[in-house]
């Protein structure tokens, strides 16, 4: 249960409950209609507390507006009543400094996102179209891809042109290396080098042969042996030769072997020389093909200095690595079915591709306005994706994907703040980008060292962006408090109003807004009465008869649902009954819990009296909220008193079901009792207060006046009329203060009474300050008008207790005493009796008192 819900919205002022003259006369007329029971109830009440039907709901009257349906009204462009927020937005967007980012505050349904987007898109039209950004291979460091900036629309063209260059080279480079010119020159080189080597070996062989020595190959090298008539001499034959001949053969073999060693040792040098010359030849041939392929792209992009430098590096790399293009198997040149070469998919050529990270559409004019729908780290900062290769995850510059910061660079980025701070690493990454003025793509896991994959370190891209965060006030406060950098980076807050004053100017705006909803969603037009009904619902949503809710999406939902019911009823225009039907159906769809709750009252499971009188028992009111549906329900509150050590036991607090605000309210009671009845004597009272059949938490102080009435009844022994329910907080002086959810609370009690049968003596006491918030359901208003139900606005406890008991509260006279037979006189008598007994017992304590605590601080 939530007591005091909506307190923030409630105005705690001294608004007069006096109705305007016109309403006064109507109220009088309404009151004239009341039957005798109502008249009796009114008679018991202090003058002016009973509210006439006209005070319970404000009716919209657009009779002064010249239209029959919304089709005749110019739809609203933008929002009404948001000048402050939109001014802040314009200011933030116009500030060139990077730390003047914008935080848009407001309720979820106030239409702020659409309004901000519309405003920024208007501003963006006159902004400069941002440049394209591409990532290219870094030929010096492959793990640190380079970022290049190109005029808008040329990034994709560069990527396409590079693909074309590679496609062309896959044909022209192999052709160049298969040309007769190249082959003949290569053969000449080959012949020059290996020929000389071969020739020298052949010459050595010939020389050996001349000397009668055989030059032979062994499995591992070469050898020489004595030879005769073309055949190797058998050892035994050699031994038979004269020693001088043998010596000569040995010398010859020795000399030939030395010569052989010299020839063979020169092979590496010859090979090196051959490779060098072949490389120069290859470069010369490749240069020709590469220059030809690059000619067009250099002409097209040579005006961009950075691209020109990049193309020079590409040229050098292509020439040095022309062999990449000569692998026939990989290129598919020998395939049975010739295949189209997709250069970007061929791993050999990826380094020459261009990743057009940010490529502005050709028709883009102005700055981008981008909304990050799912603001995860990767979606904000960008990411480098990975491919599985041989069991490892690898990446390169072509796998870099842009984030929202990239796509919105040069313009505006819209992010839901709650989603952003909920996404791991995303908030810190955004701040880092704004602080450094660069967007740096890095894998978040790298910093933690949890993932061991190949990573790249792309060159950061300069950031020129205005970030617009959307959130509620709670989140704004939280971020301001918890993150010192937040205020540094988001210096502009665009605070959207929740409500707007109900005046003629805003009514016109509201009507135009309704027309805009109808036009945007292509709905049937609304007639005047339907618009009036929407306006009244707007006021109800604002919980204030002098305000109109700016929850645009809820208003739009209402109109769209009404359109549905109008179509069902085969009406061409949306009428008041369609609006009412939509409201009723919306409530009906969401009020299952309320129905179950009502049933517990009807079946007597939850005990609440709506007739008769009881001492120390009263009906309090609370509000339950389920989603956007709120409803009120009564609760029985009872008070018991006895002589005691001076304490009020708040049973809710004792069992830890009471929240701090509730406890505060109970403590205030003590102050009121002590100040009013025990200025000169000890307050020897022991009292207990409880919300009967309450099994959930209780918070808020909107029941404090109710509890005080119960306590006064218990102390005085004067019964309280159970046909009343009460809401309102109280201060130590006995003034009844405004609370929230007043409409739901009244309707909640009304529904219970209605189910049991309205008697005309039933009603609700509300704080006087809440009269301005009354926008009750029409059936409640009708019941009041017919005298079947009552709503009293009270300013003080004295007024309230008189209505509840039908007896005067009592005003202390010149003798310092309350008049006899007044409620307060009886209270004072009881307290005096307690004090006397305590004095007799010598055990009282007249400390300040506290709910749930004795004066000495001991808890029971």
């Amino acid at each position: 249960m939530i007591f005091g819900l909506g307190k923030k919205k409630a105005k705690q002022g001294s608004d007069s409950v006096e109705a305007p003259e016109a309403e006064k006369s109507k109220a009088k007329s309404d009151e004239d209609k009341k039957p005798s029971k109502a008249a009796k109830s009114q008679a018991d009440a202090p003058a002016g507390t009973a509210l006439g039907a006209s005070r319970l709901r404000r009716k919209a009257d657009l009779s002064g507006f010249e239209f029959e349906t919304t089709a005749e009204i110019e739809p609203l462009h933008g929002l009404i009543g948001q000048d402050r927020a939109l001014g802040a937005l314009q200011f933030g967007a116009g500030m060139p400094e990077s730390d003047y980012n914008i935080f848009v505050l407001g309720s979820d349904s106030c239409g702020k996102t659409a309004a901000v987007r519309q405003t920024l898109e208007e501003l963006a039209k006159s902004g400069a179209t941002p440049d394209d950004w591409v990532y290219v291979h870094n030929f010096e460091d492959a793990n640190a891809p380079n970022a290049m900036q190109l005029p808008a629309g040329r990034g994709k063209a560069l990527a396409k042109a590079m693909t074309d260059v590679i496609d062309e080279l896959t044909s022209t480079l192999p052709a160049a290396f298969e040309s007769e010119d190249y082959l003949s020159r290569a053969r000449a080189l080959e012949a020059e080098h290996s020929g000389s080597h071969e020739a020298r070996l052949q010459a050595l062989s010939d020389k050996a042969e001349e000397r009668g020595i055989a030059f032979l190959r062994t499995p591992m090298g070469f050898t020489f042996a004595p030879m005769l008539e073309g055949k190797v001499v058998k050892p035994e034959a050699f031994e038979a030769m004269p020693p001088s001949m043998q010596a000569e053969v040995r010398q010859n073999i020795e000399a030939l072997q030395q010569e052989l060693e010299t020839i063979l040792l020169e092979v590496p040098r010859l090979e090196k020389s051959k490779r060098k010359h072949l490389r120069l030849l290859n470069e010369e041939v490749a240069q020709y093909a590469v220059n030809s392929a690059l000619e067009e792209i250099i002409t097209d992009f040579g005006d961009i200095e950075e691209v020109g430098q990049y193309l020079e590096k590409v040229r050098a790399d292509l020439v040095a690595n022309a062999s990449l293009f000569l692998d026939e198997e990989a290129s598919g040149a020998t395939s049975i079915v010739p295949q189209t070469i997709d250069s970007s998919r061929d791993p050999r050529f990826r380094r020459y591709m261009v990743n057009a990270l940010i490529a502005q559409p050709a028709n883009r004019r102005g700055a981008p306005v981008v909304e990050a729908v799912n603001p995860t780290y990767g979606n904000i900062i960008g990411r480098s994706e990975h491919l599985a290769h041989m069991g490892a995850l690898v990446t390169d510059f072509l796998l870099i994907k842009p984030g929202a910061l990239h796509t919105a660079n040069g313009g505006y980025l819209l992010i839901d703040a709650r989603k952003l701070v909920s996404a791991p690493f995303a908030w810190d990454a955004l701040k880092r980008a704004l602080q450094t003025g660069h967007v740096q793509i890095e894998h978040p896991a790298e910093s933690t060292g949890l993932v061991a994959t190949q990573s790249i370190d792309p060159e950061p891209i300069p950031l020129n962006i205005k970030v617009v965060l959307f959130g509620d006030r709670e989140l704004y406060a939280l971020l301001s408090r918890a993150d010192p950098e937040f205020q540094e980076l988001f210096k502009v807050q665009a605070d959207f109003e929740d409500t707007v004053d109900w005046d003629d100017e805003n009514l016109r705006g509201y009507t135009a807004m309704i027309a805009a909803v109808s036009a945007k969603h292509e709905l049937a037009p609304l007639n005047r009465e339907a618009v009036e009904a929407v306006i009244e619902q707007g006021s109800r949503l604002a919980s204030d008869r002098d305000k109109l809710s700016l929850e645009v999406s809820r208003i739009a939902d209402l109109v769209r649902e009404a359109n549905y019911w109008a179509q069902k009823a085969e009406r061409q225009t949306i009428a008041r009954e369609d609006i009412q039907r939509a409201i009723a159906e919306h409530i009906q769809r969401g009020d299952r819990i309320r129905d179950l709750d009502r049933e517990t009252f009807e079946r007597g499971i939850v005990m609440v009296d709506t007739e008769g009188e009881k001492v120390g028992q009263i009906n309090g009111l609370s509000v339950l909220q389920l989603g956007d549906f709120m409803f009120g329900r009564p609760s029985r509150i009872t008070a018991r008193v006895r002589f005691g050590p001076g304490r009020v036991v708040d049973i809710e607090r004792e069992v830890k079901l009471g929240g701090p605000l509730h406890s505060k309210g109970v403590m205030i009671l003590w102050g009121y009792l002590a100040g009013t009845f025990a200025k000169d004597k000890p307050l020897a009272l022991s009292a207990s207060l409880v919300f009967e059949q309450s099994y959930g938490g209780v918070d808020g102080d909107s029941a404090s006046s109710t509890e005080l009435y119960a306590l006064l009844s218990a102390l005085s022994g004067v019964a309280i009329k159970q046909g009343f329910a009460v809401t309102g907080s109280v201060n130590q002086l006995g003034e009844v203060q405004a609370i929230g959810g007043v409409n739901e609370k009244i309707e909640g009690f009304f529904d219970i009474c209605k189910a049991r049968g309205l008697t005309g003596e039933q009603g609700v006491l509300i704080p006087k300050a809440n009269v301005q918030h009354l926008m009750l359901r029409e059936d409640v208003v009708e019941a009041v008008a017919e005298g079947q139900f009552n709503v009293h606005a009270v300013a003080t406890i004295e007024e309230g207790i008189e209505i509840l008991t039908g007896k005067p509260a009592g005003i202390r006279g010149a003798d310092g005493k309350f008049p006899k037979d007044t409620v307060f006189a009886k209270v004072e008598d009881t307290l005096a009796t307690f004090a006397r007994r305590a004095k007799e017992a010598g055990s009282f304590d007249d400390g300040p008192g506290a709910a749930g605590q004795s004066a000495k601080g001991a808890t029971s």
Partner: protein
Amino acid sequence: MIGHVASAHEASGRVVLRLTSGAGAADAAFEAAARIAEAFQSEIEGLFVEERQLVDLTAYGFVKETSLTGMMTRPISATEIEREFRSACHGMRKRLERLGRQIETRVITTITRDDPLPALARTCAAAGPWNVVVLGEPFRARSGVLLGEILASVRDATGLVTVGPKSMRTKGPVVAAIENTDRMGGLVRTAERLASADGGRNGGVIALLIADDFHHLSWLETQARLAFSGGPAPQFFAAPPTRGEPGVAAEAIRQLKAGFVVAQFGGMAVPYDDLSPLSAALECPLFLLR
């Protein structure tokens, strides 16, 4: 002869791949052996010849072996040469077995210690007349004599396959080098059979017509077209008149980027004496029909 086998559409014969202990074997020779075996559905016999004279040399105390890099020279011993034989033989056996698995052909390995030529002649004689000899080591400029000796000594072989120092390509059209009408039929049929091994995907058969002068060339072309007019004909390509220069025919062969060349031994394409133009130009295996 294998040409006869091809002409008669017979499917038999054996490929004898001769590998000597004294020289490194070229990859192209292995691939050539495989292609012929596939084309003629024959088995492959790897003949590893441990050269007897290298063993004999170990008896010389002063004979030394210089490594291929020239960095090391050491006395040659019987133990060392035996070890080198075993090592080389083991490596070649592995290559052969791998080759057999790839083309799903039976492979036999024979090791013999002898002089290379008699060893080859004896092995071919043992296997019957329908052998094709594939030489593992590339031929050199002066290998013409050796090729002639093999063709003369090894009677039980219908052809001889050899590779040049630059022979690395085995994919491409099969070129039949035709220099006269007598051998034309056998050469073309053999080329067609070789081309059929891969379904003709590498370019089919090109009949390269080689003659001294235009007149002879024109006559040869006419005869060739007449000879094949009744059925599927190869693609004809006329080489420039050679004017007695062997380099012209070699260059024409190179320009066709052949995967295999079929030729007769002793003509202008493959002369008896100087093979240097062909060794510089030949980029694929060469099939010499007897």
